Each structure stands twice: as structure tokens, then as C-alpha cells.
């Protein structure tokens, strides 16, 4: 455990007696009270997460825009400052280096890339290796930033009333603003990974610690990575390593809308174009079991006694009580309504292919 990194909020998690576990190279809180209560706090009121493990890589310079557009699947040319885009960085074969957010900062030619904790070093190396011939400065500031996600239907009220951030009220989904809290600069972003409305605050570690204390004091439920996963899963959001990976393309994962093949060039474009025209052998689907059993990542999906794929994430949905999973299956079996089964230990359990969103998102548009 001694090689694991600690976030700036580590002492706070210890004081709250959180159950801690390794995640993405960090020692992170999995739960404080229990996953069910924390999950429901976010769906019904508000909860907050330490997401300081996420990586912050800044890209700037005269070629910043064409460079990011070269390594990113979405098209940042259409973005005004203050806007955020979701997308992926791809390998030439269409596999995913990482999925990330790109923030277009107020200063011209400055961008912030927010990447997955487990991929920070790999991403930085990848980005640097792609930058030959582009006049850009790549600055990995991950260890100088803390981040808190405040999520849930009451997030806006808390940001405004408790934190005094009136600008939160007018911030549209997937936009951000540079502001100040307690006299210190923070980046206030209307984003999240739960399917609920909410904000993510980026700031220096000492500011994040003070912000955490203020939110705790006002009664916001601290939430661990356990319910972060159950929340994102229910609304069909992918997790790198499960629904996306070097071996799973965004087309297979059903995320083609974030891959702009009308851009003339980006790494992986040829492979993606081929996948779009020819179709992929596999497709990510939802499966709802009609019998009581919990399908977990890695369990085989079967049809007529043959293995046709495997589960990528599965739970008994906390919001609906249903036994559901996302699974990567042979395309020939992927149509909605088809009967399949999932092998859970020694037995198989019947299920039906369905949409991979098991609970409706509740974003503020």
C-alpha cells in the first residue's frame, strides 16, 4: 500500500472512518456509511465526492487547437471559451487511450484536459509523443489540483446558498467559469458522472480541503467511489477499463456521437470510418435478468448454449432494484428484446437485451 498516492483529502477520509481501497494508483474512499445510502443521497438530495485523483493536463500554444483536434475524437473548433467537450483519445486501430473532458479556457489557445487517474502517466506520454511538429506546451499539473464533485438535485441550491457561488445558477450543463471562493481562485464546472445535475470544483489542494470542510459542515453527504460506480452505471455512462479500453472502440461502446468523422483528420479516424461502414463484430448492450442473480464484470453471456460475449459492469440497480448489466456481445445477438442468459457461477440465468440506460438522467439543460 505504501506506493499508493493520497489525495489532499486523505486525512478527511481517515477522520470520517471511510473504507479505503486502491483505485487508479491512489488510496481512495469506497464508502463512508454504506453504498445504498450514499447512492440515494445523490439521487434524492446531494452528495459529494473526492475526485482529486483525476488528472489535469494543460495544453497551450499557437497550435493547441489543431493539436488537440488531432488527438481527440470530438471537434473542439466549434467550442467557445467556457465550454467543455467529452470525447476520447484513440490509438490508430480505434482502441481507446482514454476518455476525457476538454475545457476551453478563457485565455486564448489554452485548454485543460481532465483524464482518468489510472491513465495520467500513459496519457501524458501519449500526448507528448503525438505532439511532434506542433508548437504546444504540455503541462501535467495533476498533483497540484484537488477536485470535488457535488452531485444531486440540491447541488445548485448548495453551491449558491452554502458556498455563495451565485454564478452556479446560470451555468449551463457542460460549461464552466473561473471564479473565486473564500478569496481563492476555483474553476466551477457544471459536469459530473452520476446522471444527476451537479458541479465539479477544481482548485489548489488547500482550497479543496476548505471547501470540503464547508460542505461537510452544511450536512452534504460524503460519498465514496462505490456509489460513484453504481450511479454512473445506472445511467449508462462508460468506465474506462470496463466499457472502453485499448481493446474496445467507442463505436462498439455506442459512443459514436462523440467521434466526429467529418473532421478531416485525427488519430484513429481511418479505423473508426471502417468500423462505421462495415460494422463492428461486437456491440455494447444492456441486459436485464428476468431471474434473481447479479451479473458481474467478466461473467459470460450465452445464447443457445454458446458464449456470445461478456458482462462489463453489472449490479442490482439501487434505484430500480432490477438485476442488470452492460455487456459486450456479438453483434448478431445485440438486438433489443432478444433472449440471452448470463452465467453466474455454476448456473445460467435468463435475461433480455435492453437499452443500456437503466435509469433516466436528470441533467439541467
Amino acid at each position, binding site marked *: 500500500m505504501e506506493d499508493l498516492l493520497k489525495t489532499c483529502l486523505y486525512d478527511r477520509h481517515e477522520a470520517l472512518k471511510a473504507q479505503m481501497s486502491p483505485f487508479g494508483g491512489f488510496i481512495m474512499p469506497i464508502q463512508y456509511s454504506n*453504498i*445504498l445510502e450514499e447512492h440515494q443521497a445523490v439521487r434524492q438530495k446531494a452528495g459529494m465526492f473526492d475526485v482529486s485523483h483525476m488528472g489535469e493536463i494543460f495544453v497551450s500554444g499557437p497550435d493547441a487547437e489543431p493539436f488537440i483536434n488531432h488527438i481527440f475524437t470530438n471537434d473542439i473548433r466549434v467550442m467557445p471559451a467556457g465550454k467543455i467537450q467529452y470525447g476520447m483519445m484513440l490509438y490508430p486501430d480505434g482502441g481507446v487511450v482514454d476518455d476525457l473532458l476538454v475545457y476551453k479556457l478563457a485565455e486564448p489557445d489554452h485548454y485543460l484536459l481532465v483524464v482518468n487517474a489510472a491513465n495520467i502517466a500513459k496519457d501524458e506520454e501519449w500526448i507528448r509523443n503525438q505532439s511532434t511538429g506542433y508548437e504546444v506546451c504540455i503541462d501535467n499539473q495533476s498533483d497540484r489540483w484537488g477536485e470535488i464533485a457535488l452531485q444531486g438535485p440540491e447541488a445548485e441550491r448548495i453551491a449558491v446558498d452554502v458556498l455563495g457561488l451565485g454564478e452556479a445558477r446560470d451555468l449551463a450543463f457542460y460549461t464552466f467559469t473561473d471564479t473565486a471562493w473564500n478569496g481563492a481562485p476555483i474553476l466551477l464546472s457544471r459536469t459530473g458522472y452520476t446522471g444527476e445535475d451537479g458541479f465539479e470544483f477544481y482548485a489548489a489542494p488547500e482550497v479543496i480541503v476548505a471547501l470540503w470542510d464547508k460542505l461537510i459542515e452544511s450536512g452534504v453527504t460524503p460519498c465514496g467511489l462505490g456509489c460513484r460506480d453504481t450511479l454512473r452505471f445506472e445511467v449508462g455512462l462508460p468506465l474506462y477499463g470496463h466499457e472502453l479500453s485499448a481493446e474496445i472502440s467507442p463505436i462498439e461502446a455506442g459512443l459514436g456521437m462523440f467521434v466526429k468523422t467529418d473532421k478531416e483528420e485525427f488519430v484513429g479516424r481511418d479505423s473508426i470510418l471502417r468500423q462505421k461502414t462495415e460494422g463492428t463484430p461486437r456491440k455494447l448492450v444492456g441486459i436485464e435478468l428476468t431471474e*434473481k*442473480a447479479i451479473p*458481474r464484470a467478466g461473467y459470460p453471456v450465452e445464447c443457445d448454449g454458446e458464449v456470445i460475449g461478456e458482462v462489463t459492469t453489472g449490479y442490482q440497480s439501487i434505484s430500480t432494484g432490477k438485476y442488470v448489466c452492460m455487456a459486450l456481445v456479438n453483434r448478431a445477438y445485440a438486438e433489443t428484446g432478444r433472449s440471452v442468459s448470463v452465467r*453466474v*457461477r455454476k448456473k445460467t440465468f435468463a435475461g433480455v437485451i435492453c437499452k443500456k440506460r437503466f435509469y433516466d438522467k436528470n441533467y439541467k439543460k
Partner: protein
Amino acid sequence: MKTVEGLYYSESHEWVKVDGEIAIIGITDFAQKAMGDIVYVDMPEVDDEVSAEEEFGAVESVKAASDLISPVSGTVTEINEALEDESGLLNQDPYENWIIKVQMSEPGELDRLMDADVYAAFCERQ
């Protein structure tokens, strides 16, 4: 972490209470704490054969499934049906809420298990 005197304990965190030739089997307080909220118990059926050190079912928390390993060999005589609807009983009182009862075929297997003190020390090292 709580242990109960007079029970036998396995390294995979099951307990056994002996009642004549019947072994009553459950999971320990250490196990339920480590798993968190238990949402489902996958149990064998009555008359199924179980073998010592082999899987006989699983306990599922919100986040993961943990295999149940039988501490003894024999035939299942009873399963705790209350757990089918209320698996959280294992969190509330893991020693009161047993999972299966087994007619032992090799009672000598009990000698390989730990007593409460040895098990408590074993958990300290986990």
C-alpha cells in the same frame, strides 16, 4: 470485530456451530464488515452435497460477489430461507443468522478449523 466462543472458524471467514452430526454454517462478523451491504445470498438446495474447502454458494454485496467455502463435507439438510428475502440479516447479526445446515460425513474435518481466539488473531493479520 466480534467472535463467538465455542464456534469453529475457517480461513475463508465462515463459522461452524456443531449440533450433534449437524454443522450449522454462517459467515463471520469480519466477513460481513469487509463486504458491506449484503444484497443477495446464493444458497445450495436441500440434499445437495458439499465438500470441505469447496464453494457452495456466494454472498453478494452491492459491489461484489464473495464465494462461500464449505468448512466441512456432507449433505445440506436445511437452508435459511429468511435470507432469500432479507439478506441484510447477515449484516445485522452474522452469528445469529446461519446460512445452511449440513449433515457431516467427515466430522474429523472440524479439527482443521480455528477456535475463536486463533481466528481473532488470524483476522488481525489480514
